[in-house]
């Protein structure tokens, strides 16, 4: 009984695995859909905003206090994923826009803490000893 089933079964299995393999390889060549285009544009805009923020004088001062230079910080921003960038951008929206000097410096400190924390989690940096990198 078992012998009877085994042969067709194994053919079936081999065939299914072949299908699996093929589907993975052909998934790539395609039109890029509009959702992807819009998402890419949004990511660029957010990246530009975060980069511009890190170029600000007050932000640079806070980074220097953490011993991170501006060029390095920009590199880290470039390595962040969409979700991480969105998180930082959200935090930026809640900062006082112009405001008094005190407000913006405090804001910058919080934001830079966030950037360093996220890059720490990713294992790019190791500023905070309590963070264990993912990899």
């Amino acid at each position, binding site marked *: 009984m078992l012998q009877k089933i085994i042969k067709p079964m194994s053919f079936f299995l081999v065939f299914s695995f072949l299908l699996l393999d093929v589907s993975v390889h052909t998934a*790539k060549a*395609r*039109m*890029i*859909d*509009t959702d992807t*285009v*819009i998402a*890419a*544009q949004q990511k660029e805009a957010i990246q530009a905003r975060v980069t511009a923020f890190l170029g600000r004088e007050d932000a640079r001062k806070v980074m220097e206090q953490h011993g991170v230079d501006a060029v390095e910080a920009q590199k880290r921003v470039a390595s962040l994923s969409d979700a991480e960038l969105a998180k930082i951008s959200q935090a930026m929206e809640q900062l006082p826009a112009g405001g008094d000097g005190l407000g913006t410096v405090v804001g910058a400190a919080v934001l830079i803490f966030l950037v360093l924390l996220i890059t720490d989690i990713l294992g790019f940096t190791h500023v905070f000893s309590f963070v264990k990198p993912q990899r």
Partner: protein
Amino acid sequence: MFFPLLSPNAKRREQSRFLQAGNRMIAGLLFLTLPLVLSGCAALSTRSLPQPPNVPGKALVAGVPFFAQDELQCGPASLAMALNWSGVVVQPSELTPEVFTPGLKGSLQSGLIGSARRHGRVAYPIAGSEALLAEVAAGNPVIVLVNLAFSWYPKWHYGVVIGFDQGRDEVILHSGLIANEHLGSEVFLNIWQRSEYWGLLVLPPERLPATVEEEPWLEAVAGLERTGQWQGAAAGYGAALKRWPKSFAAWMGLGNSRYSLDNLAGSAEAFRRATRLQPKNGIPFNNLAQVLNKQGKRKEALAAAQRAVDLGGPLVDNFRHTLEEIKAQPAPTNKPRRKK
């Protein structure tokens, strides 16, 4: 009740150090709680309609039919009103399976949005009373989500705002079992506030909202693509391009929609416009290559695909596959040569 302590009179009395310390503490506490008190007051005091510039004192949208809702069916009823106004003939009961979630005994906002798209209409969310008035004044009914009870005992409800009257401080709605209900703006704003002033426009794709912004509009139109409403999507991108002729994403969307409608020449034209707007972006070249290939213009297709690969970017793997796929296809049959 704390304020007298801060008056000059009180200050003179506070010679004892204890009192002074106590006063400081109270002042500190007051200072800390002031923002809370102020924001609380603000939430309760701005209870009349705003008066945005360029918006008339009263307005009423004509041609919004009223459907009395069945029990729990305010979502389908409200959507049916908006859809019929926009030119889609549909009964609330037909929308129930698309919108209503039986387990929740209600309809989610995403349900309304998805259903509007399935009927070829652009679902464009708005927030806040200024946008509401501007849209109604421009002749667009607005579906609103309100909480009729309390935040801790919610009774969520959808209605359709069809008008307002600044003079009488009223908002006019089709809601529940009542057509043209005149609701005092204080009550309306109180119950609407609990949904963070969520409103939804349901529009024919060629009709831009009065308060339209480029990115949200394009996102809303891209939603039509996801439901296969390519004709509507193409119209929506077309409307966007009339307003923002240099919108890269709108040209891309138009190209994709026309491609799905088998309008290859139109699609290629749209992608070419996109390549001119962002000549260093590989995406439009990749899509242009696919269209040209389908048109049988193999040589041009290869050039465009190669260009995409050269430009690179995060989607470069995709571009390479496009190039390889075109290369791997057999060269076009030599029909023209044979004829000679």
